[in-house]
């Protein structure tokens, strides 16, 4: 039982970080209807920015955190302006967006390899590694921090989407871009805000990831898992992304706890395929109908 509880806690903590990343995929998908594969690169850069703000600039933890989240927020907007806006203006089909995103992802990953190098970097010890003992269950301080920060961020996001004017505009635009534009919503600004939000959370997720593991250029591949989580929960749905991520996190830790960590990724992709075959709109996604 305590083993089960332990895995559940680990799953919740990793799942909450997946949720931060998955929210970025889902926000973009809800409005632009394509999977933004450059998001993984943004998360990776978030981890690097956090690392350099902490070590080279010596900023205090919280400031470094915010600074790297802001940097990646700006970076995500820059990517949108450079790689997607021209396509948007030409009304290109979704595939061109995906290819462009793949190009951006290759670009981001390799510019890090070319400038910083492919070596692993590990964060300085911010929190002590000694875990908190709760009965028979151990609670890592980093895991706890990851969970709390993610939960706060997600709560802020829900508040933003539900209770601010911009949030309402995002909701309207995700329903119909054309109609919202006709109603006087500046959809271009909405898209910028959506990318900035996604990038902001990507930065936070990147730093959390870097704290827990290490930083290296291929970290973006791990973030594919959060994409699976977004599909699992239903692309384009924020609650879906969160629920999907938490479930995926728990499934993953249970797999490595009870089976073998070799099968962890396999199970994640098998889950992706199963969801697509059985229910492509995911747990809570909007039902996509063919517009002929």
């Amino acid at each position, binding site marked *: 039982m305590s083993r089960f509880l332990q895995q559940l806690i680990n799953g919740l903590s990793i799942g909450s970080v997946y949720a931060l990343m998955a929210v970025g995929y889902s926000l973009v998908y809800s409005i*632009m*209807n*394509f*999977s933004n594969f450059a998001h993984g690169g943004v998360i990776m850069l978030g981890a690097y920015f956090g690392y350099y703000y902490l070590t080279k600039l010596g900023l205090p933890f919280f400031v470094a955190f915010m600074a790297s989240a802001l940097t990646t927020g700006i970076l995500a907007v820059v990517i949108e302006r*450079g*790689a997607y806006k*021209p*396509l*948007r203006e*030409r*009304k*290109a*089909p*979704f*595939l*061109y*967006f*995906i*290819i*462009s995103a*793949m*190009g*951006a*992802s*290759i*670009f*981001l*990953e*390799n*510019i890090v*390899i*070319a400038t910083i190098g492919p070596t692993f970097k590990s964060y300085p010890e911010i929190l002590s590694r000694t875990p908190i003992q709760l009965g028979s269950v151990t609670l890592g301080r980093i895991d706890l921090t990851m969970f709390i920060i993610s939960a706060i961020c997600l709560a802020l996001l829900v508040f933003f989407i539900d209770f601010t004017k911009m949030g309402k505009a995002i909701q309207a635009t995700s329903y119909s*871009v*054309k109609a919202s534009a006709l109603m006087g919503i500046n959809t271009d600004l909405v898209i910028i805000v959506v990318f900035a939000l996604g990038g902001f959370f990507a930065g936070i997720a990147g730093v959390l990831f870097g704290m827990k593991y290490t930083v290296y250029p291929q970290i973006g591949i791990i973030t*594919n898992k959060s994409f*699976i989580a977004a*599909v699992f929960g239903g*692309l384009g749905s924020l609650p879906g992304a969160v629920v999907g991520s938490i479930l995926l996190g728990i499934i993953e830790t249970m797999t490595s706890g009870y089976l073998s960590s*070799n*099968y962890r*990724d*396999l199970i994640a*992709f*098998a889950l*992706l*395929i199963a969801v*697509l*075959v059985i229910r*492509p709109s995911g747990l809570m996604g909007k039902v*996509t109908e*063919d*517009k*002929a």
Partner: protein
Amino acid sequence: MDLYYIQGILMLAGINLMSVLGLSLLTGFTGMFSFGHAGFMAIGGYTSAMMTVNYGWPFIPALLMGALTAALMSALIGKLTLNLKGDYFCIATLGFGEAIRLVLDNVQYFGGARGWPGIPNYTNFTNVLIINIIAIIILANIIRSRHGRNMIAVREEELASQIVGINVFKYKLISLMISAAYAGVAGGLMAHYMTFLQPKMFSLVKSTELTIIVIFGGLGSISGSVLGALVLTSLPEILRSFSNWRLVIYGLSVIIIMISRPEGLMGGYELTPSSMKKLFTRMRSKKGDLPKGMEGGNTL
């Protein structure tokens, strides 16, 4: 640069071209996008290597066996996912490609993630060239046949072709199976060229590379795919002196192509003697359009 080096690059381009040709049928002529073709290459490669190494088959039957296995696998995958729309089909193929790689990572019979060395070196310049020429001829004939026209109809307008009596699902499935078979042959050629197989060789990056080549060459153009494979396979080699920066340039150029010339190098035209004249006169009169069905889309 000696002849041997150039030949090596051309062989790599030929191997890439083999799977690009298949993907060209699927993407350029049937209008479906796959991010999992590296998975089919892996199936073809591992099957044909198993045939030559463990069962002592000759090279060509082993290649055909690899193609057959890849096609059968794709039939299974197609049955499950071909009804998915747009983005979701892409994601499903992505999932399958990665799943195949991860399964191979865990199959100890094939060496698992460590890889499988000691595959005989059967691939040479001549057989790559001959196989590619045969593949191009077969593909050109498929496209010109009734079945090929039906596939193009599916690309142009799915609903309308369903109404005039084309079995859309069937033609999508045929297209997927043929393209998987091509990828299977490519995998087999690669296995017997590298003499080493590792699941890592067939990652998402490889699938993306293939799709990028097809789009770079131009959707709906076989000669575009040929040119694309030649240019994009040799480009990283030419840029090799920049070492780490070459993939940065590669990524950047992909974005620039998408933004500036989305119709690709050939943009739906073929490079045959008769079409050259037509192309030339057309280029004078107006800029080439995208093949219909490739523009529009429901984004914004």
